[in-house]
């Protein structure tokens, strides 16, 4: 086999990064009593190591090997998992990531850091690594060498949920196993997630296989060789008892058919409670039967139409089982039969008969979330091929990966369609003014339908680009962990609304401002544990990230329950830095807004995390460049809330169309505070030009677009200066734009000027209006700068 390995390297890297993410999130939520969590982390490390070895990333393989060894010791309780150890492991994931990145033309690795971390790993491990990789989870009874004639092998096969995605088919493995001997397959469905979390391409099944064969453990392992890294495999040999009948000491299998009457629920009995009691007796597989289910129109909510078939492997007696159903004896049909021993039910009846022992501890059962009633568990018990069929179902793809370019081009096309539709609508409207008739009416109806359909289409297409905000949120647990560790603060991070969807482009750009805000909350907002206790709060501070939709926007709140903003300190600092004048009287809200000023920082000393004064103003600028806003609410000793308001998409903008002279411009609605028709007395002229507007106790400067855009007009100058003023806001500053006329408000598709032209200060782009003409979109922040530059120029000229 000469397969060019290099083509798989990118896949390996991708998977490794995923693996690292899994490790990281696993470590962050680490809880030493959770066996499954550490197994997950271990598996991720193990596959990275395996892949790295295969593809020749020896450094990665070596390093990961130590990590894996440590994890294995933690798993087997040889090492106690302390927070320090978890931190070491987290650092190790960083090292692995750095090594991987370095291998693909990434930045040079910090060899010192790597070797230090590796050294610490080895220290923790004690002696220089003598253990080799642990391939599969050792079970207590590893009687691997035994060459029993016809032993009963119990194989517990728990594949990773993405097993099918990597192209493996459990069915084939089972077929291979059945060639080794008589095989009985049982499906376990207890890791089924809630329906809402169900992903069709994932595999939630696991299997318990009983194999009667004279093969060795190696033979069985070989069958699973390809999926070794992607599953948990427990192979153990069961006892081969000589006495198949009625041995009370060993487990026997019971088949219970439980057919309750339809009104059993009304009598207050809950089958799921009985099943739980059954589970206490031993391993049970509950299979609901739906044959009594009536047509949907005959369905009655308080009637029970299900019946169950339960297979119970337990040492118990028939009486014990009957006892469980004692209360419903009169309300159901109950059949309890002892099954003939296992091997007789397999395909190979000539094998030595044996009784099945509970092949694996029932720890998997306990992992079923408690709130999920067992009766609803659609446990399926099937044999052989049919089990594989069930496993196949989730593979039907419900999502596809598409190049974003394709999506963008689709969005563009739809944008064109919307413009064309608007154009046609205009023509239709014009037509109705000059003529009437049934044809015109039909045309109108058609046009209306077209409008609705194009709008819907546009909305749908826009949604294609939307992704849940969890993609951004996911990086924050790690951030909080690291930062709080550095600061010596105890922090609980609460995330909510992670499923809120937001445009991919917005999401890519919101990560950094969010990171800054969260750091800020941790550093400045939250107090140290001692301070918190002194203030009568719990030791652990809380930072909450909450995302939700509100009127065409997404709002992300960053809430901390810390000390709140110190208005007095902010005021003093601002005075000190000359951001405000000493005699300026500000209310608390205005003082809070000061933190967004450039060059502002209240931290008494510059820390690694914040305090350098480049901070909140950058956050605000970044968010505003996305067409968003950031605001702040704070209460002393209760905490502060930063609210980030963002448009759902960058492709469309709610705009106010205005006329300036003979051109049409679009002002983003989000930046308009108000539009007013000012009285002459409210406009104060300075040196003959309208410069200041008296607006609600405030003087705000006016910008005349004609001047700052240098629109040289060939029209007569006698046109009276307009009094129509759009008050716009950016960066906490307000200015008034003098416009000649207000047109309508409409959604416009944003087109870049840069693609074929260049960026123009004061403009954020262009759009195409219904008549096919181009209108420029104003960028308020840029306009302000342009205005300032214009004033300077004018001043220079006059001098």
């Amino acid at each position, binding site marked *: 086999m000469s397969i060019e390995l290099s083509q798989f390297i990118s896949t390996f890297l991708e998977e490794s990064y995923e693996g690292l993410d899994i490790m990281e999130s696993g470590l962050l939520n680490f809880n030493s009593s959770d066996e499954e969590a550490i197994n997950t982390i271990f598996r991720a490390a193990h596959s990275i190591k395996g892949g790295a070895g295969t593809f020749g990333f020896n450094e990665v393989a070596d390093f990961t090997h130590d990590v894996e060894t440590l994890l294995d010791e933690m798993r087997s309780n040889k090492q106690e998992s302390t927070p320090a150890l978890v931190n070491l492991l987290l650092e190790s994931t960083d090292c692995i990531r750095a090594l991987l990145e370095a291998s693909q033309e990434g930045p040079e690795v910090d060899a010192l850091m790597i070797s230090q971390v590796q050294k610490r790993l080895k220290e923790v491990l004690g002696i220089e690594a003598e253990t080799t990789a642990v391939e599969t989870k050792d079970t207590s009874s590893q009687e691997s060498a035994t060459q029993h004639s016809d032993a009963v092998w119990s194989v517990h096969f728990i594949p990773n949920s993405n097993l099918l995605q990597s192209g493996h088919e459990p069915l084939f493995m089972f077929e291979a196993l059945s060639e080794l001997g008589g095989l009985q397959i049982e499906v376990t469905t207890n890791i089924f997630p809630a329906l809402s979390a169900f992903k069709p391409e994932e595999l939630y099944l696991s299997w318990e296989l009983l194999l009667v064969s004279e093969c060795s453990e190696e033979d069985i392992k070989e069958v699973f060789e390809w999926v070794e890294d992607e599953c948990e495999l427990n192979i153990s040999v069961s006892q081969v008892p000589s006495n198949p009948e009625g041995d009370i000491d060993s487990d026997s299998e019971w088949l219970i058919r439980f057919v309750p009457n339809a009104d059993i629920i009304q009598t207050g009995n809950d089958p799921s409670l009985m099943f739980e009691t059954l589970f206490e007796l031993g391993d049970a597989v509950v299979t609901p039967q739906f044959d009594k289910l009536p047509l949907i129109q005959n369905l009655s909510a308080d009637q029970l139409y299900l019946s169950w078939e339960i297979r119970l492997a337990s040492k118990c007696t028939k009486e014990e089982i009957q006892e469980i159903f004692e209360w419903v004896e009169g309300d159901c049909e109950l059949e309890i039969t002892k099954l003939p021993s296992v091997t007789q039910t397999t395909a190979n009846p000539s094998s030595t008969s044996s009784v099945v022992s509970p092949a694996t501890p029932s720890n998997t059962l306990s992992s079923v979330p408690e709130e999920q009633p067992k009766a609803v568990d659609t446990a399926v018990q099937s044999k052989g091929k049919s089990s594989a069929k069930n496993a196949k179902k989730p593979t039907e793809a419900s999502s596809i990966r598409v190049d974003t370019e394709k999506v963008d081009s689709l969005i563009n096309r739809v*944008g064109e369609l919307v413009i064309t539709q608007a154009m046609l609508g205009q023509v239709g409207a014009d037509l109705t003014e000059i003529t009437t008739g049934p044809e015109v009416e039909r045309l109108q109806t058609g046009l209306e339908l077209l409008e609705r359909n194009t709008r819907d289409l546009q909305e749908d297409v826009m949604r294609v680009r939307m992704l849940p905000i969890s993609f951004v949120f996911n990086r924050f647990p790690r951030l909080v962990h690291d930062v709080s560790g550095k600061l010596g603060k105890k922090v609980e991070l609460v995330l909510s609304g992670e499923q809120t969807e937001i445009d991919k482009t917005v999401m890519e750009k919101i990560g950094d401002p969010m990171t800054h805000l969260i750091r800020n909350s941790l550093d400045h907002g939250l107090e140290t544990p001692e301070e918190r206790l002194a203030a009568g709060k719990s030791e652990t501070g809380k930072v909450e990230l909450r995302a939700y939709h509100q009127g065409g926007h997404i709002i992300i709140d960053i809430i901390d329950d810390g000390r709140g903003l110190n208005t007095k300190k902010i005021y003093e600092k601002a005075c000190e830095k000359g951001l405000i004048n000493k005699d300026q009287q500000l209310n608390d809200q205005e003082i809070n807004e000061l933190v967004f000023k450039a060059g502002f920082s209240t931290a008494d000393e510059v820390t690694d995390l914040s305090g350098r004064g480049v901070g909140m103003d950058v956050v605000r600028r970044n968010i505003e460049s996305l067409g968003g806003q950031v605001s702040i609410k704070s209460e002393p000793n209760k905490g502060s809330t930063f609210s980030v308001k963002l448009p759902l998409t960058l492709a469309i903008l709610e705009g106010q169309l205005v006329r300036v002279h003979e051109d*049409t411009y679009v002002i983003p609605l989000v930046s308009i505070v108000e539009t007013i028709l000012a009285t002459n007395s409210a406009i104060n002229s300075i040196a003959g030009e309208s410069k200041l507007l008296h607006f609600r106790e405030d003087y705000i400067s006016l910008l005349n677009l004609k001047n700052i855009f240098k629109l040289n007009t060939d029209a007569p100058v006698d046109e009276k200066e307009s009094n129509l003023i759009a008050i716009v806001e950016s960066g906490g500053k307000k200015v008034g734009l003098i416009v000649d006329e207000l047109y309508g408000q409409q959604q416009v598709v944003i*087109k870049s*000027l840069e693609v*074929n*032209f260049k960026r123009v200060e004061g403009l954020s782009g*262009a759009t*195409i209006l219904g008549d096919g003409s181009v209108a420029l979109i104003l960028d308020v922040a840029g306009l302000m700068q342009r205005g300032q530059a214009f004033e300077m120029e004018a001043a220079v000229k006059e001098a």
Partner: protein
Amino acid sequence: MTTVNAQTQGGDLHSNAEGQQYLSFLLDDEEYGIDILRVQELRGWTSVTRVPDMPDYLKGVLNLRGAIIPVVDLRQRFGLPVIKYGPTTVVIVIRVLSGAVERVMGIIVDAVAETYTFEIDQIQPAPQIGGGVKTDYITGLMAHGEKMIILMDIDELMNSEELAVEELA
């Protein structure tokens, strides 16, 4: 509005060694030639949206089936007298290589004249013109009967001054 689509799809943007085709147009009785493979389409004059604070020759931007493209009046660019746009006024939509990216732009000319095929060795080099006239974008001269055709490098022309690609900040 007439739109002629030049069949340039998939055409090589870089000139071939022999028999290069040129599209010629008129500007104040002068005839200029540009590489025909760069011409995307020809369209009649329609009003454009002016962009603030731009030199006079940059007339504004135009909606070309959803793309916003800048339009340059070549007369004004060359300092020729301004005339009113008439029925023969044509916007030639060209593809300009600006560094690594390809930009689409329009140039306004008096009229489109002809297409020619010239052998490379027929082309005479542009003479040095004194007096501060910028001739960077003139690649050569071509005599065709009585006429002289000025061959231009549109990349050089359209990436200069206001249209220069900004360094990414």
